[in-house]
């Protein structure tokens, strides 16, 4: 469902025309465009945005954890066009069980570390990612700290060997 404020938006119109139901919904908040995209189409949408609409960089990729709701995660893409001075936010809903999304590193190589961060801190896996390793936490760390069910402290008291 595209909100009224976006009915006249040329970019959103073009996206809906091209991808149809893959653009699930769209709203405007604080003068910023937010589009929900179906998980299967995110790479195609990003490629289209970069190729046809000059969105030449992904500012950031991050995630939200709506625990205990389902679908639990939202992966958020903050996309920016330098030429048009335009920013939009793409969101993909991901289930809490084995959360997986396609990686957009092929579109914007800069998404590499941001997706690694989401993988590390939220546990969302990115398929076709060239280097999906933890980036902030130690490699042997268990759990994903930015999940809402991860405690703020008291996770482990012994960080040494043999814990």
């Amino acid at each position: 469902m595209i909100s009224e404020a976006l009915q006249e938006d040329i970019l959103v119109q073009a996206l809906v025309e091209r991808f149809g139901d893959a653009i699930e919904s769209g709203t405007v908040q604080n003068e910023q465009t937010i589009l929900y995209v179906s998980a299967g189409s995110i790479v195609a949408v990003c490629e289209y945005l970069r190729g046809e609409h000059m969105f030449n960089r992904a500012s950031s990729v991050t995630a939200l954890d709506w625990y205990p709701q389902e679908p639990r995660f939202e992966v958020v893409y903050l996309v920016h066009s330098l030429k048009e001075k335009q920013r939009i936010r793409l969101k993909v809903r991901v289930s809490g069980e084995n959360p997986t999304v396609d990686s957009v590193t092929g579109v914007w190589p800069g998404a590499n570390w941001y997706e690694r961060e989401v993988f590390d801190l939220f546990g969302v896996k990115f398929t076709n990612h060239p280097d999906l390793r933890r980036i902030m936490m130690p490699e042997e760390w268990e759990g994903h700290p930015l999940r809402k069910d991860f405690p703020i402290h008291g996770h482990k008291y012994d960080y040494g060997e043999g814990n």
Partner: protein
Amino acid sequence: MAISTITARGTNMSETITPGATLEPVASQDGGTTRKMTLNMGPQHPSTHGVLRVLLELDGETVVKAQPEIGYLHTGIEKQCETKTYQQAITLTDRVDYLANLSNNLCYCLAVEKLLGIEAPPRAVWTRVLLTELTRINSHLVWLGTHALDLGAMSMFFYATRDREEVLKIFEMFSGQRLMTSYFRIGGLALDHPRGGLAAVKKFLEFFPPKIDEYETLLDNNPIWKNRTIGVGVMPVEQMLAMGLTGPMIRAAGIPWDARKDEPYSGYQNFEFDVPTRTENDVYARYRVRMEEMRQSVRIMTQALEGMPEGAYQADAPKVVLPQREKMKTQMEALIYHFKIVTEGVHVPPGEVYQVIESPRGELGYYIVSDGTSKPFRVHMRTPSFGNIQGLGPMCEGGLIADTIAAMGSMDFVLGDTDR
């Protein structure tokens, strides 16, 4: 632009360097064979200015591949923000980028103000501009001193630190703190200007511009400096953008992108200033851009000082801004609001916002999601250093080990900003 230009360098990003691994032989110049080697630089290395680990794969002295590893300063600030009220979280934003603390305060406050639908009064807005530009000078001075120190110009470090001291004194006058200022609050400032505060800024503005000239006499035509910086750390500009590099890095590559001009915030549209750019895209060009930015900051500060409005320094929003002490003693409502703000915090309507500002290092963005309670549901910090370091690998490939130091210095990253 074809994808091939983006991935022209750094194509083998997926392969991880294993320290100490036996690598394939390569032909040496005298006809025999030799092996490539891996070198572990950091995490404790003086030129990383923090704890950054770079794995280098070397062929002789040439860098075949460089792979930065971060996370050594990860303190979970984003997670901590979710456990604090909106007011309390301001103190955490200082600690993200400890050289550009006020820029982080500003970005956070602007984002929360947008969610709340309030605006800071003119006096607060102009003071914010004045002090964030001072922050830019502060940050650039630290960069200049340490970057020059890395490349062998030791005296530069002493000059830069000496003059940075004057900036820190001003921060201390305004906020009571030299580094972790937390001076900007949601809806305005923590305190009004201190007595003599603006006079101190005025004095600094007279004192500082000749110092920039002085630094340039030390470096501009210094043959060692030029040899170490000119033509070093070059990278295709489209690749830089796609890899997430921002700020002076991009402007030294000829793209006049500055959030202060392109997406004006906090009244920057009222100020006259130029966005310095260069086209060489090497370490020297980045040095020139940052020197010119300091001059532009002085120009903005002069305007902010001359036009500093009188009046309130906090927004008239009793449910958000703590009441004045005098009002609390005389008005029942003020006392109630004070009690509510301190015990419960500020309830922010549900919604989300992404606020971008131009920090000394580039695009600084706060993505804040509110679920209607007094604590943020999610605070994501899009920090410039994180994006910039990501480009370190492709930037260093094909250069010498010594050029890695120059390229790293020219990025001006802060590891606290990277790891959060």
